[in-house]
C-alpha cells in the first residue's frame, strides 16, 4: 500500500512534522510511518479527525528497546484502525532514554493503560498522562524489566508494598491515590 498520499495529507495538516515511510514486512495490511517525536500528538489528532482518515479506533501502543545496538534506543510503536474504512496504520517514533513523549490519551483514552505498561516496563515517561503509575509490577519495583540491559534472572527478597493491615488514615490515603476519577462529587 502506497503511503505517499497519507504523508502528503498529514504534512499539510501538521506543519513541521517529519514523516517517512517505515519499511515493514506487513505493509500490505498495515502501512507504517516514521513520525518525529515532537509531533506525535497533533499527528494522532489529525489521523482521528481529518476527513478521509478517520482512525477512530485505537489498537495498541508498545515500545521496543534497541539497546545497545542503536541510538536513540527506543521505538514507540502505535497501531490504529479505521473500522469503517477498513484500514490500519502503524506509527513509529524514535526516542532516547530520558526523553519524554506526549501521551496520546487525549486522542484515544484507551492508550492509557498501554502507556502505563510502557512506563512500567521500559521507563518511558508520557507527558500529559493523568495517571502514570506502574501497571504490571509492584509500585516499589526497581528498574524496568523489558529494557535490554535489565537482567533476565534477578533474585529479590519477597516484599509487600503495602502492609497487610493498614491504619484508617493510610487506607484512605491509598484509596485517594487509587481513585480513577478525582472530580466526582462524594
Amino acid at each position, binding site marked *: 500500500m502506497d503511503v505517499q498520499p497519507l504523508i502528503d495529507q498529514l504534512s499539510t495538516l501538521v506543519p513541521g512534522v517529519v514523516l517517512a515511510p517505515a519499511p515493514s*514486512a506487513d505493509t500490505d495490511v498495515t502501512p507504517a510511518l516514521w513520525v518525529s517525536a515532537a509531533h506525535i500528538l497533533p499527528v494522532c489528532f489529525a489521523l482521528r479527525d481529518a476527513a478521509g482518515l478517520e482512525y477512530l479506533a485505537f489498537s495498541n501502543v508498545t515500545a521496543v528497546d534497541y539497546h545497545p545496538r542503536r541510538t536513540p534506543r527506543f521505538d514507540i510503536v502505535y497501531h490504529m484502525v479505521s473500522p469503517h474504512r477498513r484500514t490500519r496504520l502503524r506509527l513509529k517514533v524514535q526516542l532516547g532514554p530520558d526523553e519524554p513523549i506526549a501521551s496520546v490519551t487525549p486522542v484515544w483514552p484507551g492508550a492509557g493503560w498501554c502507556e502505563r505498561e510502557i512506563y512500567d516496563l521500559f521507563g518511558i515517561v508520557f507527558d500529559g498522562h493523568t495517571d502514570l503509575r506502574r501497571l504490571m509490577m509492584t509500585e516499589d519495583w526497581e528498574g524496568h524489566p523489558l529494557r535490554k540491559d535489565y537482567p533476565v534472572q534477578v533474585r529479590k527478597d519477597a516484599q509487600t508494598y503495602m502492609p497487610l493491615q493498614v491504619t484508617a488514615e493510610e487506607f484512605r490515603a491509598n484509596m485517594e491515590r487509587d481513585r480513577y476519577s478525582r472530580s466526582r462529587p462524594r
Partner: protein
Amino acid sequence: MTVNMGPQHPSTHGVLRLVLELDGETVVSVSPTIGFLHTGIEKTAEQKKWQQVIPLVERMDYLGAQSNSLAFSLSVEKLLGLEMPQRVKDIRVLIAELQRISSHLVWFGTHGMEIGAITVMLYAFREREILMNLNEMLAGFRFFPSYIRVGGLRDDLPRGFKEAVAAFLERLPGKLDEYETMLTKNPIWLDRTRGVGTITLADCYQWGLFGPIARAAGGDFDVRRAFPYTGYETYKFDVIGASNGDVYDRYITRVAEMRESVKICLQALERIDPVGDFQVADRRVAPPPKDEVYTEMEALIQHFLIYSQGFNVPAGDAYVPVEGPRGEHGCYVVSDGSNRPWRVHMRSPGLMASQALHKFIVGGMIADVVAVIGSLDVVMGDVDR
C-alpha cells in the same frame, strides 16, 4: 463506602482487584488493579528460539490458547515471507473456530453461573469437555496443544479427528438451543442483563474494544472480514451484531457467534483433504520428513540444525491482527535477523476491557458489576501476561 473486590473473588475471572466506591448501592467510581498474574512472558520470549515461543504465548490467553499461537505464527511467517499451503490454512481455520467455541462455552458457563444460573455452567462444561478431548487427540495436551507452529502445524491431523469433530459439530447446535431455552427468554436473566453495562460504539473504538463487545454495540468490525488472514475471505459466515451494547446483547452476540463458528468449521471440514501438507515445504523452517533424515545426510544436518539452533528470521517487524474469542488479538514481533525474537508483544483485548471497566459500571448498581465483568469475558492471563 469503599469496597475492595478481589483479587480473590470468584467472579473476577482470576485475579482482578477492583476498588469500588459506592453511594448506597450505586457505583460512584471504580479503580481496577491488575498485574497479579504478570509472569513476564514477553521478556522470557526474548530469550527463547522462535519456535519455543509458541507454548509461551499460548499461556497468555489461556482460554483461547490457539488463537495466540496463530497470531504469533502468522506474524513470524510474515517476516519469513512464507505462504502456507491451502490445507494448512483450512486446518488452522478449523482449529481457531473450535477454540472460539471452547472459549465462548467457558464464558457462557461462568457468566451464567455468576448471575445465578448455576445449571448452565454444568451444561456448557459438558460440551467443552468434548473440545478438550479433541485437543488431547490432536496434540496430547488438553489446554495448551501448541499445535499451530511457525511454518504450519506440528503434525498431521490424527486418525479419526475429522469424524470426532463432525460428531461434535452435529451435537452442538442442538445443545446451544438447549442452553438458550434456559437463558435467552428467562425473565430473571432478562432483568439482570437488559440495559445493564451499556456502552456506545464510539466509546468502544476509543477505548480499543473490538470483537463481540463492539459488535454488540452496533459495530460490524470483524478482523476475519476486514483484514482476512489464513484464508477467511473464502469462507461464508455472517458477522453477528446487536445494537444496544448491554450485557444481554453481548450474550446474544456470543451465542450467535458460536453458531457461525459451527458453520465455518463445517466448511473447513469439507475442504480438508484426508492426506496432504501439514507444513510448508521451506526447509529453513520445517524439519525434513523422518524417512529422509534416516537416509540422506543433508536432511539429517537440517534436522539437527532446526532442533538445536532453530532458524533465523529476517530482520524487520510485523503485526498480523487475528480475531480472537475476545476481540482483536495480534502479535507485534521484531526480529534482528537472529534465531531469537528481539521483541514479542501481544495485543491484549482483555487489558483494554478491564481498563474501560468504569465506562460500563459507574452509575450502575453494585450487583451489576459481576454481570458486567462476566459479559466482558476478561481472562487475567491475557491481561497481565
